[in-house]
């Protein structure tokens, strides 16, 4: 009941936010929030740290960008194709990666994503270092002109809500329960007869497809797909967002993404621009040393301690 009220409040806030805040900033937050939520599905609910999620973000972005520029499809088709391609790449990478655990899983995903990075660096259609510039936003369903920031914003909001709902559904489904069982006690899940690797694999595919959805949407918002999105720093950034917000919580990644994007935006303009990387690093260190549950996790703990049963 309380949660429902929270959802409603957030939804209303999201509806009226562009009146007060710069819509492109809000869209950026939403895209990264979706990316972080997708990532959190793996880290928070299966216990797998992927250090290569940028590959999916970038794949979604490049595929959508290419289709929008060269085939003249409508944005929704472009986004769906980007998402599917990211999911397919995720199926391939996931198959290789889920055989390994813990740190090995992290390393394998990192190396695989570098493969994607160098592919996009050299493939002629991506524009290499220049990025894919001037991607048209197009007309949604062929009717609504997305060049207008307001229409674009509500479109992005709808996509975000869809992605968020997907993740929510996945976590609360029987499938999600098995994932949590794997996270808590993998040998037990195996002894209960679950094919653990298959479960992990499916979770990996869902996560990568949603990361691709975030990337596709981001490309439309900024009308640009670039190597930044496939670089391993991006993979690190999404870990930071999730860790800061609280891994394994529903709202954590959302809050973490908002905080990180806001810090970057706020600092990059002024004299403090060069401090962004230092501040991000400090946040990492502080989170790991002092509050591993993240902002939402800590709040939950406080609530439990004071009001919990």
């Amino acid at each position, binding site marked *: 009941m309380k949660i429902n009220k929270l959802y409603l409040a957030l939804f209303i806030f999201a509806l009226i936010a562009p009146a007060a805040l710069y819509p492109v900033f809000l869209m950026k937050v939403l895209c990264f929030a979706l990316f972080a939520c997708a990532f959190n599905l793996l880290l928070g609910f299966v216990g797998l*740290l992927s250090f290569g999620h940028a590959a999916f973000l970038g794949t979604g972005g490049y595929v959508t960008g290419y289709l929008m520029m060269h085939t003249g499809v409508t944005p929704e088709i472009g986004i769906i194709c980007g998402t599917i391609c990211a999911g397919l790449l995720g199926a391939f990478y996931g198959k*290789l990666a889920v*055989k*390994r655990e*813990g*740190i*090995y899983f*992290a*390393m*394998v995903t*990192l*190396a*695989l994503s*570098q*493969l994607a990075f*160098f*592919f996009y*660096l*050299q493939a002629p259609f991506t524009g290499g270092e220049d990025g894919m510039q001037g991607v048209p936003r197009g007309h949604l369903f062929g009717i609504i002109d997305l060049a207008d920031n307001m229409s674009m914003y509500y479109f992005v909001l709808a996509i975000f809500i869809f992605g968020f709902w997907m993740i929510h559904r996945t976590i609360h489904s029987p499938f999600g329960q098995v994932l949590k069982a794997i996270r808590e006690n993998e040998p037990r899940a195996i002894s209960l007869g679950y094919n653990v690797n298959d479960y992990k694999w499916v979770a990996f595919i869902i996560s990568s497809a949603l990361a691709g959805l975030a990337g596709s949407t981001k490309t439309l918002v900024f009308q640009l797909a670039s190597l930044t999105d496939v670089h*391993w*720093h991006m993979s*690190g950034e999404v*870990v930071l967002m999730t*860790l800061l917000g609280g891994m394994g919580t529903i709202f954590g990644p959302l809050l973490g993404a908002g905080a990180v994007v806001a810090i970057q935006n706020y600092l990059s303009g002024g004299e403090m621009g*060069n*401090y*962004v*990387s*230092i*501040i*991000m*690093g*400090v*946040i*990492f*260190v502080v*989170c*790991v*040393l002092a509050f*591993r549950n993240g902002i939402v996790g800590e709040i939950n703990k406080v609530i439990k301690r004071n009001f919990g049963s």
Partner: protein
Amino acid sequence: MATFLGINLFGLSGQLLVGLINGSFYALLSLGLAIIFGLLRIINFAQGAIYMLGAFFAWMALQYFGINYWAALILVPLAVGIIGVLMERFLLRPIANEDHLYSLLLTFGLALILQGIFTQTYGSSGLSYAIPESLKGGTRLPFMYLPNYRAWIIVASLTVCISTWWAIEKTKLGAYLRAGTENPQMMQAFGINVPLIVTITFGFGVALAGFAGVIAAPVYAVSPEMGSNILIVVFAIVVIGGMGSIGGAIITGLGMGVVEGLTKYFYPEASTTIIFLVMVVVLLVKPAGLFGKEA
């Protein structure tokens, strides 16, 4: 110009030699990572930043204190090693009992901080460090002109790599070290100070990266990004060699340098990708890596 089956042999040998030089750096860096991982089960994401720190320390030592290259070759790894010891003692030990992923994230954060500080202070356009007088000039080989300093890189790093391997695999100290990894409780019971061994090993692994940094300073631009560029390649090498395998790290490091050199000659477009391709193939065929024994 000598050619064989349409291959320009001079060009090819040149690229192979450059590959070997790059391989020496890979070997030094991955050796440090392998030692740290073998003992502490920590993936040290800051290894690249430490390498950068080594190069900057060498530059600063010369610039501010007039300490020459040869002295820096000893002093800088020591200084970097001390930083490593402090890092282990005050940052990594408190989370030693948590999931190992946290130590990976912590070192990632440290790498960001170090890189950020140096970008802030020195900009990222790179500083230059002169080649020491005694290593200037070069030798004209039949196929290329080999600068003396590049030859020195191979000699110095191979010497360090092989003696490290020997110390760990063949000496008593190395035996303690390996035993400490296998069964810390037992070693503790025998009266060996395991935490001290852990700290020193971490310091040593990090010092290796500092040493590589000093070696790199005269030939590569000393820039805050030099570490993050090479780090990911080194990670791939460690995965290929088998994580934690010390001999594997050295051999794979050199080998991958050569493979990269070959690719640069035959198909330059793929030279940046080749190592990651090799890694995927190795993982498919031998998931533990070429020299790994982990289950």
